[in-house]
């Protein structure tokens, strides 16, 4: 790994994922190179079917690459066994999904404490942490609600709290606002801004420009490969009015 990656929290080299054979070969991810530094928020944008979700799954160890390497905190994870991957996921990576994927029969606080329980924490510690996190996302008063009693935006915020349960190195979010309306999206974006401000490394896959606009770096993806990268932070300053073209 190059020295530039020395502080990189999440890195990929020549990452590939293929399905099928011969004529039916589909390259979902085709030679991706990536370095994400601590505290960065990176957005991957692209049309549907471009392989961004697959990329996220590969980065989080939910799927095995066909070729190339993925490393988290300097350690390669693509050659780990299932058990080691599971343990890695507990402490290093937090997932947020488009479909929320909360357990329907557990209350909000029970959902949030689950990763901690799976990591072997005592029930009391896990419960306390879960309640803290719910407060952070502004849902402390809904701790005992079932997901069916929560709105889409609230469910996603519970999911984000859950992802933070074990203080992960990286939070990976797959279309986090895909199922949300405009107001709920704003709530989630606020949350992401706060996470970013607290130094959390965040990788977001999205096709919503508003979500991508919150990132420091935006990468365009097409047909499994990166085609463009934009630095957004430290961007245009100056009069907002000019920016939004109010003077004509």
């Amino acid at each position, binding site marked *: 790994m190059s020295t530039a990656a020395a502080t990189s929290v999440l890195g990929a080299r020549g990452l590939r994922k293929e399905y099928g054979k011969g004529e039916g070969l589909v390259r979902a991810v085709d030679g991706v190179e990536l370095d994400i530094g601590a505290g960065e928020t990176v957005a991957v944008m692209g*049309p549907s079917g471009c392989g961004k979700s697959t990329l996220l799954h590969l980065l989080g160890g939910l799927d095995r690459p066909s070729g190339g390497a993925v490393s988290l905190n300097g350690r390669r994870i693509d050659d780990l066994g299932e058990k080691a991957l599971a343990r890695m996921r507990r402490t290093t990576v937090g997932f947020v999904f488009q479909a929320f994927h909360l357990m329907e029969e557990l209350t909000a606080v029970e959902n949030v404490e689950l990763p901690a329980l799976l990591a072997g924490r005592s029930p009391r510690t896990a419960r306390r942490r879960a309640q803290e996190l719910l407060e952070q996302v502004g849902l402390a008063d809904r701790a005992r609600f079932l997901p069916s009693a929560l709105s889409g935006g609230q469910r996603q915020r519970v999911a984000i709290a859950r992802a933070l349960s074990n203080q992960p190195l990286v939070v990976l979010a797959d279309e986090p606002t895909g199922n949300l309306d405009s107001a709920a999206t*704003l709530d989630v974006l606020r949350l992401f801004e706060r996470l970013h401000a607290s130094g959390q490394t965040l990788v977001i896959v999205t096709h919503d*420009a508003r979500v991508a606009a919150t990132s420091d770096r935006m990468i365009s993806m097409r047909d499994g490969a990166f085609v463009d990268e934009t630095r957004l932070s430290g961007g*245009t300053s100056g009069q*907002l009015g000019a920016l*939004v*073209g109010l003077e*004509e």
Partner: protein
Amino acid sequence: MQQEVVLAMLAKEPSHGYQLRARLRGALGPLGDAMNAGQVYVTLTRLERAGLVAVERSADGAERSDRKVYALTPNGQQRVAEWIAEVRWPRPDLPEFHLKLIAAAAAGLADPLTIVNTQRRELLRRLRAAQRAAMAEPEGSEAVLLLEGIVLRLQADLRWLEACEQSWTHRRSGS
């Protein structure tokens, strides 16, 4: 009709006025039906006066506008190059951007994809600024509504730019 559009149309090769009109109508489709027939000629005359366009000797030396052959002057070429590189985004003028891409491709002035991506970057930065401003506003502020409106329209524009990028990628790989 933006002057720069007509200028860019001439970048590929000198043309008659009616040829220009035909190309514009072809590119604009149904939107072109609203175009006034004489507008192209008015713009050409203005451009001629500004020194950006010159009339070439026509074969039979006719004086009628529709038989003249117009060509870019060096000033005109420079103006076109500047326009291509511009990232102004006034109240969304979709036809202008659309024609910019077509002209650039036809005349080989620049890669349409680069134009699209550059514009996207700019819009993204604006979106980010507007969004942050909206989130920074205190609760109940009136400005939030306006900022949200700006954010949403920028989002829509960005979606269109994505579509442009897809379309032009296909055109390139197809041709």
